């Protein structure tokens, strides 16, 4: 493929777009709509994932001890827990400390606990942090079976609720996005079909004078790719602006903190959106060429 050929393909591709302006605008708009939606859902998923991982990293396991364990037993347990794989930190909280902390939590109403010092009902416990959220389950299972452990608790429910929420968002967005992508492909398919029709005389002559099939195809493929590319870039620009506004608004009016900044979101989805945009464009034109060019 020589340089002059490539110049020809682009020249013809862009001239198609210009001659077919109305459909060009319609195609680009449909790509913008599809990829903007895709961008919004991706931004939501990225933010929820971010929140989940923040919560997960804060999750601690609390292992309550049976009453009346000797110092010796507690030391043994401490060593046993520390030897489990995936443990980052183990802190011991005695019965007295537990009662003290509970009092602090109650603050003004701590008088409710008066007189309990003699018969302290609070259990002693180990507070355990793991190296990653993925090992929580296995650590819990390992500790549960240890001698002297009464009960093990951790924030399982919160994590599961959030994971369920992201699952629902993912499904809804996937369905919507697939529909929007199909609509874009169909519109681009029709756009290219119109240019193929407008250039049918030229295509006939090209065949007679010995143009290869690929030579005939390239301008149309470029036309489709440009439609996809332009739509993607516009969608990313609109997404960036509107996302920044949304974050600012949520923070100011609803005190939602910890949302990802626009630049992080765009960086994360840029390549995915660009590839999908180009695939939409090239697919639309390839289908059209296949159907109407018969080369």
């Amino acid at each position, binding site marked *: 493929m*020589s340089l*002059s*050929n490539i110049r*020809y393909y682009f020249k013809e591709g862009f001239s198609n777009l210009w001659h077919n302006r109305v459909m060009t605008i319609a195609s680009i708009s449909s790509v913008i709509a599809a990829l903007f939606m895709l961008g919004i859902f991706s931004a939501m998923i990225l933010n929820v994932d971010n929140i989940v991982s923040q919560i997960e990293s804060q999750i601690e396991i609390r292992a309550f001890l049976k009453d009346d364990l000797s110092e010796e037993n507690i030391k043994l347990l401490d060593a046993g827990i520390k030897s489990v794989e995936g443990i980052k930190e183990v802190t011991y909280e005695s019965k007295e400390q537990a009662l003290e902390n509970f009092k602090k939590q109650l603050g003004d109403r701590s008088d409710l606990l008066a007189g309990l010092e003699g018969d302290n009902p609070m259990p002693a416990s180990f507070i355990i942090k793991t190296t990653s959220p993925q090992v929580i389950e296995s650590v819990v299972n390992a500790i549960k079976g240890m001698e002297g452990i009464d009960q093990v608790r951790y924030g399982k429910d919160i994590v599961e609720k959030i994971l369920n929420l992201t699952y629902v968002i993912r499904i809804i967005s996937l369905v919507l996005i697939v529909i929007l992508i199909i609509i874009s492909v169909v519109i681009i398919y029709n756009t290219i079909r119109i240019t193929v029709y407008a250039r049918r*005389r*030229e295509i*006939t*002559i*090209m*065949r*007679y*004078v*010995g*143009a*290869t*099939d690929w*030579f*005939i195809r390239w301008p149309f493929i470029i036309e489709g790719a440009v439609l996809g590319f332009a739509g993607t870039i516009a969608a990313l620009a609109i997404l960036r602006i509107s996302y920044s506004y949304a974050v600012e608004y949520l923070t100011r009016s609803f005190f939602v903190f910890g949302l990802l900044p626009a630049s992080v979101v765009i960086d994360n989805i840029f390549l995915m959106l660009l590839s999908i945009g180009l695939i939409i464009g090239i697919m639309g034109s390839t289908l059209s060429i296949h159907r109407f060019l018969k080369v």
Partner: protein
Amino acid sequence: MIEFKGVSKKYSGNMIALSNINFFIDKGEFVFLVGPSGAGKSTILKLILKEEGPSSGEILVNGYDVTHMKPGDIPYYRRKLGVVFQDYKLLPEKTVYDNVAFALIVTGAQGSAIRKQVPMVLSLVGLSDKAYRYPRELSGGEQQRAAIARALVNNPTILIADEPTGNLDPDTAWGIMELISEINRRGTTVLVATHAKEIVTNMKKRVISLHKGNIVRDQTRGVYSDVVK
């Protein structure tokens, strides 16, 4: 150069356009293909151009086995065939120069080759001074000259013309046929399907006469004749 061996062509619906056609055209020959409407002249040209494939038989052109050619070879095969039609098939939004250059561009030719070749063929067909006119600004004869220039710009070994003078008055038709004859003198093999009786009779070239899909006469210095056997 061009050889048909037992070629038959059936279109859909059992329409037999050609039955058992045999002929051989040597390098440098000038051949007229004549016969009444529907005799199968255009079908023979379409088979040579590989727009259609034969139902049976073999076609050999320029050393290619046209019948069994790989689709990828077709464009390169066609570059050695120049083709001219009754309706010229010029692109209305391009100048004469660009119409001719188009045939080179789509073969991926270099800009320098295009700038050299196009003026050369335009001068050969006598259109040097009309290079930057649009087809609508030309007479029918001039448009056909532009189309011939486009057919020649790739230096074809064979020129194929389907009723090239069909839309032209007799004087203009003579001019076009003389141009084609001049191209033949320069070494290009020529095959012309035509109804132009007078021209065929006067030019004393080889004439292959078709009737209802059969060759009824093949004369080396032939005349146009309506008489069938």
